[in-house]
């Protein structure tokens, strides 16, 4: 057989337990446990994905994630302080009676973070790759986070200036940059093809996007609200077309990737399926959170009643302590349940669907692949954690 197919061997019940348990621990430790939560959930998902019957393995540790996060906090704190100082003094120098420098300087900080966010994403991906193993062989990525950051800034600027026409160029070039730096053992991934192959997929999205622009311009020029109402139709369609383009581009690009001496990898998720999973999963999450939270709140209220501190006047003017207890109980219940349900109803079926479409062609060539050396974690994705631009888990 010349194709290795993938199956997903996880059970929702197991995942529910793991997500609930780690979610509670995260809340109890004021968020500190989240590094362990992420690590444990990754281990679980990785082990559920079995390519040619052999599960993936995630070898990252929570301690290295925590150290990486702390290191990123140090670096970012100095960076932000320095940037704020420069922004502040520049604004003061530029001020000639214009009082708006405060808003001006505040608005500049997020801009300063944009290249850092791209850098953080590259490094987070690099860390995850370096901690992924299959059949005992490590994956890995070579350096290039800053190269990625400036390219991403450049391509985004070009895309915006061209009103989206250069979007496929950005998609292709950034994906090629990432792919060509990815390795399985000593075998390199390579991206072939060109931006041209993505134009068919991007067309519906661009048409919708320009339709939105046209409606906004028409509404502004004519002053008629009717055009504005048109956005209610075109904006959701644009979003659907955007998701569809994203998924189709992943398929098209995967079809042009090779590994080492002629091994081919393929991944073919369906946009419709992913959209359905997301809509259904979010509705289910909402239902569970909406039904279970009041029950938990009822139990807390019952405990307060039984403890004898209840007094009818509390309904009108609850004492601060009791109001705080109720508010915190509600918030924590919603937080933990929401996170758990997201995993069970959204992440699980998405990973399952995407994973099951993965194929590896010409597996006999795997015997030419050799192990690569262990990479140190460095920041272990800490920049992405500190900036809150991490993935779902």
């Amino acid at each position, binding site marked *: 057989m010349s194709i290795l197919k993938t199956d997903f*061997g*996880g*059970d929702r019940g*197991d995942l529910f337990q*793991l997500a609930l348990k780690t979610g509670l621990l995260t*809340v109890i430790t*004021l*968020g500190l446990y*989240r590094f362990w939560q992420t690590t*444990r959930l990754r*281990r*679980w998902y990785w*082990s*559920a994905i*079995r390519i040619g019957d052999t*599960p993936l*393995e995630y070898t*990252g*540790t929570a*301690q*290295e994630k925590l*150290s990486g996060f*702390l*290191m990123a*906090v*140090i670096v*970012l*704190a*100095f960076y*932000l*302080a320095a940037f*704020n*100082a420069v922004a*502040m*003094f520049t604004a*003061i*120098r530029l*001020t000639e*009676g214009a*009082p*708006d*420098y*405060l808003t001006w*300087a*505040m608005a500049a*900080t997020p801009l300063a973070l944009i290249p850092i966010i791209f850098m953080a994403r590259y490094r987070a991906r690099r860390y995850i790759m370096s901690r992924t193993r299959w*059949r*005992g*062989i490590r994956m890995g990525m070579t350096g290039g986070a800053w190269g990625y950051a400036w390219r991403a800034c450049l391509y985004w600027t070009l895309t915006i200036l061209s009103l989206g026409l250069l979007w496929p160029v950005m998609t292709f070039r950034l994906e090629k940059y990432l792919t060509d730096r990815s390795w399985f*053992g000593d075998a390199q991934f390579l991206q072939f093809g060109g931006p041209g192959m993505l134009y068919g997929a991007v067309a519906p999205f661009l048409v919708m996007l320009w339709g939105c622009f046209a409606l906004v311009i028409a509404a502004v020029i004519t002053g008629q609200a009717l055009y504005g109402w048109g956005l209610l139709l075109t904006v959701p369609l644009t979003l659907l077309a955007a998701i569809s383009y994203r998924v189709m581009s992943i398929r098209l690009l995967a079809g042009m990737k090779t590994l080492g001496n002629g091994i081919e990898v393929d991944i073919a998720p369906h946009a419709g399926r992913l959209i359905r999973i997301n809509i259904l999963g979010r509705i289910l999450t909402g239902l569970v959170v909406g039904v279970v939270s009041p029950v938990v709140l009822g139990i807390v209220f019952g405990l307060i009643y039984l403890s004898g501190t209840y007094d009818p006047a509390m309904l009108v003017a609850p004492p601060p302590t009791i109001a705080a207890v109720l508010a915190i109980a509600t*918030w924590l219940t919603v*937080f933990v349940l929401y996170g758990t349900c997201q995993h069970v109803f959204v992440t699980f079926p998405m990973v399952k669907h995407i994973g099951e479409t993965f194929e590896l062609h010409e597996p006999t060539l*795997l015997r030419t*692949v*050799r*192990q690569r050396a262990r990479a140190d974690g460095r920041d272990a994705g800490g920049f992405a*954690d500190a*900036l*809150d631009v*991490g993935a779902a888990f």
Partner: protein
Amino acid sequence: MSGFAIRNPALAAKLARNYAEMFDGQTPVSQRVSITVGDQTLELTHAETGVTHSWPLDALRSLPDQAASNTLVVARGDDHTGRLVIRDIEAARAILNAAPDLPPLRGPRGGWRRVGIIGMAAIGALAGILFGLIPIMADQGARLIPPDAEAALGQTIYTQIHGAGDTLECIATPGLEALEKMQRRLMAGTDLPYPLNIRVVLDPAINAFALPGGHIILNSGLIDAAGTPDEVAAVLAHEIGHVANRDGTRAVLRSVGSFGLVGLAMGDVFGGSIIAGLGRGVLDSSYSRAAEERADAYAVTMLQGAGVSAGALASFFERLQASGQDMDLGVFQHLSSHPDTLARITAARAADTGAGQPILSPASWAALQGVCGQTTAPGADR
């Protein structure tokens, strides 16, 4: 094997053998091996080539948090990248019998030590930046800002606070004249980089604010609560102290300088913004404590210079404490940003020389108390 008796011992041994898939950690090629449990080792014999690997039993580890229940993956805890994938129940049982409490695989050693060291460094760096670097930066910035820009900034903030339309500004002419008189007497011989712009707003809370650039706001509640005009003068002198020290400007520059920093440490924790908000509160109050003490000292000197009893400051604090609002007087209303009221009363009393004459005549004091007889929407720059 009930019912059968296998006469050929070699065949029987072969049938009883357990198999697993081995990955040697060097190539991604699956090797089918038979498992023999020895005293100290697991003997893994390649089914085709007959080559045998021995894995020490005490180095065997299980992988934690595994999803698949029908597969057992055994790792080696001794830095060996090899893996054994067992799908056969008999084979799994044989290994679990040999190594009953297969411990979970752990990461490399020294993880906690690293967390500790970097954690200390992170706390030190954040504290250094927030309590050292940024206050210095704000002081430098406050010195560099042209007075015009500072006054314009104060006006913007005043409009932001009171421009929403709910509050009214009190503008009864006799009252404003009395306030003017009070200001003139306090300011005699004092030089500020910009003119004072004192306003009274209709607000029952006992409070007063000093914004950047000489803008001072007195709440009508403060005038109502004061027993004597000297007490109002004492609060006004305190706020003028903030203006002279450019505390309002510094507070704004500090918040520009620390923008995004407190939230950083919280990362993507739930409710991170709430904790970040609390962190900011603590930060602000620690910055302000020293500023309040300086403003108090400034007020005492100013009152003495104007020939007013410095005890007025003390008696106003006593009044505040009695009303239970003793935490509520300061720049930007920062909770608990004021030094212990008790300590301030003591300090102000100590500075009281007993001498002094009222800052306003009874008639002017009555006029000031009636300043809210006429009101207007705020925002106009007088």
